[in-house]
């Protein structure tokens, strides 16, 4: 395990030399002071209907996650079919924001775009997790059923009840993720929190931005109070009405998207039996690969590796903040507060804020990814460290950390970290939308030039890269015998 860790740290250092991490803004300190001032003077009256912004953010999250969970559940029943598994791996390898950009081309700025952008990747994730949960469930009750029992009754009586709690917990965890996704979708123009946040930031109105963020934290922190099982039926009926207007979907746009837009430019309307067409197509592939895909992949991988190690370092530094073994109640509640805020803020928003401070380079992205993911892993490890049994006369302070705690939880830590690797890469690609030259940057540029074919090509490349990292991470986890431990991350209590 140490050798693997050492390799990754060395790799990250090598990447750091190749990466652009300069601060390009002229006076980051003044800007930081203005932001700090905004945080302590939040202005809750600045957005005229701030309540509606939150309601819409919740409505998009609810509709998207509900559709994704139901779809994922149905797909989980077909998960033993190879093509279903591959399709799910593909749709979840593409980030919600990319899906939003794709659906924008088809449906325009309508609620359907936002809902599908969440629902589709979430269906892919839920299908996998539900299928695995059902597979691991207790099968003994199935064996006592008499022959001739219909499939549906057998499933609902003998299989589902045993794993229902896991599925429910996982789905509510997904809903929390959905709230973050929904907020971030505002950055591509949907009427959720991100839209107003971006407006506030671009106008330098930090008091307004602070108010929006504070309300967002309160919303996530109070999730358990208002997301009640009994209310879900009510939400399902009501939520679609709070998605905002703009339902005019043009069939011609959808048709154009599939028949013209996504067809590679050299093939459009050309004779497909002509050699000339195909040689132009080869040039097209070569051009996109060399000029966009390869530089995009290099930047994405560089940033991912640095952010991965940064995540690990921060997680190791932050987990004692919430561990009973290291801090008393007062220290722990401060630690909890800090970790909750950092992990509730989507990476995208963190990166956006740091970008305002430091200007476009890889630095804001690295810090944002490391902070957010480090806080998530730190939180899980802090809880895990509370379970560790120590002898009564154990060492204290740094000795406790180095000799007792770290050796015991290091395997768990690596399992979490490698599990998070793919997530970090997905996010790294998407941060390109903010102007960092990862794959997302090239995708966003291609879309703004209305070269949908190029964007689709690059999105598929991004998905392939994610699937590759996922496979590599699974191999390493298995090699280090960490696979069982990582599972716990998938079903957070």
């Amino acid at each position, binding site marked *: 395990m140490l050798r693997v860790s050492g390799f990754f740290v060395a790799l990250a250092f090598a990447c750091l030399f190749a990466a652009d991490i300069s601060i390009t803004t002229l006076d980051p300190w003044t800007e930081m002071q203005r932001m700090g001032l905004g945080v302590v003077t939040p202005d809750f009256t600045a957005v005229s209907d701030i309540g509606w912004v939150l309601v819409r953010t919740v409505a998009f999250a609810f509709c998207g996650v509900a559709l994704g969970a139901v779809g994922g559940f149905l797909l989980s029943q077909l998960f033993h079919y190879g093509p279903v598994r591959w399709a799910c791996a593909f749709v979840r390898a593409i980030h919600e924001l990319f899906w939003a950009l794709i659906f924008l081309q088809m449906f325009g700025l309508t609620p359907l775009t936002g809902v599908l952008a969440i629902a589709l990747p979430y269906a892919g994730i839920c299908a996998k997790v539900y299928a695995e949960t059902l597979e691991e469930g207790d099968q*003994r009750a199935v064996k006592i059923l008499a022959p001739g029992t219909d499939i549906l009754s057998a499933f609902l009586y003998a299989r589902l009840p045993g794993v*229902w709690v896991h599925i429910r917990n996982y789905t509510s965890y997904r809903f929390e993720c959905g709230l973050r996704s929904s907020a971030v979708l505002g950055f591509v123009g949907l009427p959720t929190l991100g839209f107003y946040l971006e407006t506030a930031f671009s106008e330098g109105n930090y008091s307004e931005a602070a108010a929006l963020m504070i309300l967002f934290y309160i919303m996530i922190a109070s999730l358990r109070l208002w997301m009640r099982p009994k209310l879900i039926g009510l939400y399902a009926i009501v939520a679609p009405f709070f998605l905002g207007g703009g339902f005019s979907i043009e069939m011609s746009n959808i048709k154009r998207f599939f028949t013209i837009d996504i067809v590679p430019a050299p093939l459009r309307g050309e004779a497909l039996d002509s050699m000339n067409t195909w040689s132009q197509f080869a040039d097209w592939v070569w051009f996109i690969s060399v000029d966009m895909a390869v530089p995009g992949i290099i930047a994405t991988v560089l940033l991912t590796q640095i952010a991965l190690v940064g995540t690990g370092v921060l997680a190791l530094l932050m987990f004692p903040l919430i561990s009973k073994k290291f801090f008393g109640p007062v220290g722990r509640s401060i630690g909890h507060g800090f970790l909750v805020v950092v992990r509730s803020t989507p990476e995208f928003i963190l990166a956006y804020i740091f970008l305002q401070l430091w200007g476009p380079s890889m630095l804001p992205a690295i810090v944002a990814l490391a902070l957010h993911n480090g806080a998530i892993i730190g939180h899980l490890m802090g809880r895990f460290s509370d379970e560790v049994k120590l002898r009564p006369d154990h060492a204290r302070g740094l000795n406790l950390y180095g000799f007792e705690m770290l050796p015991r939880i290091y395997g768990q830590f690596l399992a979490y970290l490698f599990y998070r690797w793919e997530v970090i890469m997905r996010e790294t690609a998407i941060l390109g939308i903010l102007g960092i030259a990862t794959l997302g940057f090239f995708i966003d540029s291609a879309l703004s030039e209305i070269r949908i074919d190029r964007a689709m090509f690059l999105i598929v490349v991004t998905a392939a890269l994610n699937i590759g990292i996922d496979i590599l991470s699974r191999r390493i986890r298995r090699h280090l015998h960490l696979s069982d431990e990582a599972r716990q991350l998938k079903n957070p209590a």
Partner: protein
Amino acid sequence: MTLRFKLTDEDFGYRGDIVLRDISIEINAGERIALVGQSGAGKSTLISILQARYAADTAFVPQDLGLVPTLSVFHNIYMGALQRNSVVRNLLNLVWPRPADIALIQPIAEQLGIGEKLFVKVGELSGGQQQRTAICRAIFHGGDACLGDEPVSANDQHQSRVIMDALTTSFDTVVLAMHDIDLALEYSTRIIGIKDQSIALDVAADQVTRTDLNTLYVK
């Protein structure tokens, strides 16, 4: 007399290890069989072989009970009859137990002393109560025959008799793996002893004494 269960010259095992060798059994309708022998002798294997072969028309109480801990006693008992009823009725019962089905299940649960627990989740019951839930499920499954793998193991003497009474009155033919010799002698018409991977003893219960059976437990 009609033949109810039959095995002829058969070997059984798990993954290449032979657990039972050259087994031939004929069991007639109306017989009450106790399978006895040391743990690991192959009683459970014999029961599960019979179960696999006669699953279509035989009620079954497995050693691990096969209950769903997050469902109520009512639902677990009702699971014995899923195959008899339509999907719609099954689904309605899952969400909203029908009074007609409660009326059918209530007396069975009462007979086994868990009538008051009908809408308690099985996971919250004691081991003995869980075992009796599985017995009720087998009774609600119905039919003329029941196979059971140590169906009284988690209950005290008194409750064990309640279970044995219920099983022997509900089913015409019973085949039960038992570790309690006295109970086996009391409730069975025929004792089958298993030792060294084969049937070592097969006699009418009134022809055998407790000491005869002890030989099964000696190496």
